[in-house]
């Protein structure tokens, strides 16, 4: 998994509520067997492109300086809906390293931590202010997310602390794979299963 320590760059004020994973990536793109790394061009396609396939200039992702921004600013409940991990792969494919929102869909949140994409939860008033600062000096404004120190630095230099579980912070900083960590507990798992086969034999087919 990719490590995440710090990112500095333009933050796109998407500022929508309930950005669902269907909106982030259409399910057909996952059926069509595009590889994980190939999903970027389809990320947010329903709002980035018009029905005739041309770019919609009204969509913020198509506007300068947001086109290559590594950070998204959003309102509540980003990543709600379907469990499709393709949503995280598509965001990464589009160059997104972190999303800042008041809170995230639970499954999306977990999926982010499996792929080195950082979901940062901040109060809505902080995000609104970040969005204002971004818009106030387009082209120059940058946001920094520092995972080691758990803080966001705004374009005007304000530092805003955020919280993250120590376990997840450690795994993200070091790019640790969950499976390898769990595999190290093979014996504990086997022991649990042995006692469960006696306690609840009907579960074991």
């Amino acid at each position, binding site marked *: 998994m990719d490590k995440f320590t710090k990112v500095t760059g333009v933050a796109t004020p998407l500022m*929508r509520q309930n950005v669902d994973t269907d909106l982030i990536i259409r399910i057909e793109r996952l059926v069509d*067997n595009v590889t994980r790394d190939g999903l970027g061009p389809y990320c947010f396609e329903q709002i980035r492109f018009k029905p005739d396939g041309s770019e919609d200039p009204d969509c913020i992702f198509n506007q300068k300086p947001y086109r290559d921004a590594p950070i998204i600013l959003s309102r509540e409940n980003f990543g709600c809906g379907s469990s499709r991990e393709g949503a995280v792969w598509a965001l990464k494919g589009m160059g997104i390293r972190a999303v800042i929102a008041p809170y995230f869909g639970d499954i*999306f949140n977990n999926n982010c931590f499996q792929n080195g994409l950082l979901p940062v939860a901040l109060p809505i008033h902080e995000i609104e202010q970040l969005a204002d600062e971004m818009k106030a000096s387009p082209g120059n404004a940058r946001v920094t997310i520092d995972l080691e120190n758990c803080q966001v630095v705004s374009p005007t230099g304000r530092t805003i602390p955020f919280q993250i579980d120590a376990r997840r912070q450690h795994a993200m900083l070091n790019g640790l794979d969950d499976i390898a960590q*769990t595999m190290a507990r093979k014996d504990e798992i086997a022991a649990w299963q042995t006692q469960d086969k006696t306690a609840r034999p009907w579960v074991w087919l």
Partner: protein
Amino acid sequence: MGKTLFDKIWDSHVITDLGNRFVLLHIDRLLLHDMSGGKALKEAIEKGYPPAQPRLTYGTPDHTMSTKPGRTEKTHPPGEPLILSMRETTSAYGIKLFDLGQDGQGIVHVMGPEQGLTLPGTTLVCGDSHTSTHGGMGSLAFGIGSSELVHVIATQTMVQRKPKRLRASFEGKLMPGVTAKDMILHLIGELGTAAGTGYSVEYAGSAVRALPIEARLTLCNLTIEMGARTGMVAPDDTTYEYLNGRDYAPKGAMWDRAVAHWRTLPSDPDAEFDREHTVDMKNVAPQITWGTSPEHVIAVDRAIPDPSTGPEEKRGAWEAALKYQGLEPGKPIEGTKVDWVFIGSCTNSRISDLRAAATIVKGRHKADHVTAWVVPGSVRIKQEAEAEGLDRVFLDAGFEWREPGCSMCLASNGERVPPGKRSVSTSNRNFVGRQGPGARTHLASPAMAAAAAIKGAIADVRKI
């Protein structure tokens, strides 16, 4: 202090505490489907992790193949490689696959309970957010992403953080025309799509106790639409009656032992919840969604909401939703012209759903301009319905009678509502583009969907 149903199942599955509220949780059942099943198995194997417990793992294709009568995996070519890869990987490791054309095939959340694979008190996961459906059997079930899926294949465990607990109690009797679908849509309308984020939900109250199993599955199905990964109903005699004799349910003396254990699971009277919410069933009427989020829902006899009078923080979202849906605020929603009707999905494709729709349809004909589909949830449901003559009822009324699968619930198999067309659907998501780019979806119960097909417009099932 007493324990909740959720805590009892969670605590008994903790292999080890990882700190910070994270635990390593044992997973008793892993269900696979074609969208992610084959890919995840391949990925696990390539990483050097063969399936840890193939006998606790079951699969069926549902998402990517056509539901056209007489279909095979070739009918919708983009889905074929996914189905072939699932077939190959499951057979290599002796994982039971309820394959296309075989007994038992169906939508994965219909298949589990139907086969007796979903048992009370078990942990069950699947790479699909509507896995919460299985909670209707008293199982702790939740949807997971692809990486988590590979983790479960490799280790039969998950690293999880304990959620908080929310109890939603429905008290009183169901009013005419009201179903479990209306109960859950009403609740989401009251609480919003994010109320359950970070929570597990227990559905309780006299109205829930009175629901048959299939209705409980519908209720739990939409749990994710209020943000919670898992929702459950405590097991009781209704559960045991439903389960007894099913293919994979315990038998004989083992059955008695299992039931004795299951009887210990319901929440203790003094168990505490982090949040409680009660719905008075007197206030629950047949529901229909008007917008592009399941929380955009009203009783069918109400007017389309006006964003200028709505809560300020939702105004923008409401305006965008009305624009997408092509609706005018203030007008009654009843009578809005409908082009498509879809009866199916893991929410509402079980035999009782088909019977409810058929009761409305019988002796009538769909409106000429409407395309109406019925997609049974599994091969067994299809056979049962045909034995009762329900297929004839639908076909005589001008509906299509199709093969089991997800179909137009998410349009990943080429079956879509055309752009700009309006559909009444018994599925669970009315997101922008969910049923196809530009499609306008209204969620409702099977009887409401059937009524819309007959009238050619959104209709109040109580008036038919």
